[in-house]
């Protein structure tokens, strides 16, 4: 069954989109990640114009992070104060990211920007995750206890403008918090991701937050950053396809429920190693497409008339 997407301006198989939503939703439920970093490239691989993939995926992440944060809210694992600080940086970052996106769009380089951002960030994050999880698996095999205690990051403590975050069990400067938020907001606007895959490690390793509130707080701020990105893309590039977003989120919501149950059964380190491998696969595919000699040496694009 085909459906015509009014903004993407193409006819696409409904079940392909529902399947993509369910598949990525399953993985995101299993691993506790948003899945935008998988969905946006997959949409591009299925023929959706990159700009539409980015704008629409941001819209879908609003939905998935709302449904994710509600569970954390009930458990009390959202640090609101930390979330607000992060989202101030995040919303500012989304404006900056949108500016860069538009600028490169006029130069005809926005597809390259999207691909390159993916290759760089997926490559770095995937490698780090794989390295860390393999080490954890090896340590467990040898029966060595992982190093306990909180990693204290000196930088976050030495900088001025300190604030107390009771739920995160922190008394640190707001500068690294705003910076992380800003970076994630920028990436959200350019890549159509929530940015959890950058923010969660940054919250743990850079800020040293209590791990129990990391996911809930990250989801909380992602809602607002992706909402900002959705509105910015809707007003600047008109690339938010609400029909596509709705189809994706129907599949995504159902997939996430099954994924979450599956995730409980699997071990943490193995799960992370698996996710790292997937991240690296997408990274390699995108990187390969950039390097391999294309079928046509020309890029042709229709200019949208307003």
């Amino acid at each position, binding site marked *: 069954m085909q459906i015509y997407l009014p903004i993407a301006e193409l006819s696409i198989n409904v079940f392909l989109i529902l399947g993509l939503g369910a598949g990525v939703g399953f993985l995101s439920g299993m691993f506790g990640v948003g899945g935008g970093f998988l969905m946006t490239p997959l949409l591009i691989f299925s023929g959706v114009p990159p700009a539409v993939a980015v704008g629409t995926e941001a819209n879908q992440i609003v939905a998935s992070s*709302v449904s994710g944060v509600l569970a954390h809210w009930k458990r009390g694992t959202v640090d609101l104060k930390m979330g607000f600080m992060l989202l101030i940086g995040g919303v500012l970052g989304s404006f900056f990211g949108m500016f860069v996106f538009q600028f490169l769009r006029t130069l005809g380089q926005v597809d390259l920007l999207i691909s*390159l951002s993916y290759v760089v960030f997926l490559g770095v994050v995937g490698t780090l995750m794989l390295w860390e999880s393999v080490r954890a698996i090896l340590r467990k095999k040898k029966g060595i206890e992982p190093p306990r205690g909180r990693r204290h990051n000196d930088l976050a403590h030495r900088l001025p403008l300190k604030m107390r975050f009771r739920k995160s069990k922190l008394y640190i400067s707001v500068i690294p918090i705003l910076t992380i938020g800003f970076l994630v907001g920028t990436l959200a606007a350019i890549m159509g991701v929530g940015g959890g895959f950058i923010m969660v490690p940054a919250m743990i390793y850079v800020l040293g937050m209590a791990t129990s509130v990391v996911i809930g707080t990250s989801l909380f701020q992602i809602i607002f950053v992706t909402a900002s990105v959705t509105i910015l893309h*809707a007003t600047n590039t008109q690339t938010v396809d609400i029909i596509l977003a709705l189809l994706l989120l129907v599949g995504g919501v159902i997939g996430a429920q099954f994924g979450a149950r599956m995730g409980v059964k699997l071990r943490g380190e193995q799960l992370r190693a698996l996710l790292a491998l997937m991240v690296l696969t997408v990274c390699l595919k995108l990187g390969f497409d950039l*390097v391999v000699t294309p079928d046509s040496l020309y890029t042709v694009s229709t200019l949208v008339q307003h």
Partner: protein
Amino acid sequence: MSRLRYILGVVAATVMAAGITADAREPLATDLSEHEIAITADFNGMDLLLFGSTGDPGLIGADGQKSNIDVIVVVHGPEVPMKIWRKERVAGIWINSQPVQFDNVPGYYAVAANRPLAEITTQDYLRRKNIGAENLVLISVEDVPVAEKIELRKAILSNRRDTGLYSLDEKAVTFPDGRLFRSAIHFPANVPEGDYRVIVRLFIDGVQIDRSYTVVNVGKKGLERQIYAMAQNHALLYGIGAVLIAMFAGWLASVAFRQN
């Protein structure tokens, strides 16, 4: 519906043709099964049927030989500005170089005939009348050397063919009866919106003796139209609406799956 119109059209064309005296040249008469293509949610491309009457059945030439009667149908979509970039390898990565803009590239261009164009008439005539994608006049905004422009033209045409928007079918036009002809015209799912000019040319022994002209409008309709118009004209409202819908859907999902 389209079937009925087809029959009515043929009847009308036949009656029209019969009403004209034998020695006056009967005009070419054509019509389409639809004059409007609505892009709705289930739109996945569409075929229109073009039908017509050549007027006279097989003419007898001066030498007593039966004349060749040929029909060339050209469907010319709305012109859209296009940008084209040549990719260059920079540090191992293929990136777009300086773009060249063309302002008058048809967003859709289809040619249908009953036999190869080269057999119907001369290359010179095809070129003069801009029949066939190769003979379209494309004007670049920037000044580019002729050799490069030829390459760019080729790239645009092959890109348009790959996307299914340019086509050439030299067997599409058929003559089920001596003077009646028909041809299917395919519009793929990615057709741009706008007015499409349908020009039917009648050739007798390689000389164009008549032509007809019709317009087909392609446009989004219903929900597709409303969503698109909203996104274009009320972008901020559309963005806020999209966010609210997503938030509601997320909340709904968490409620729906709470018990499980």
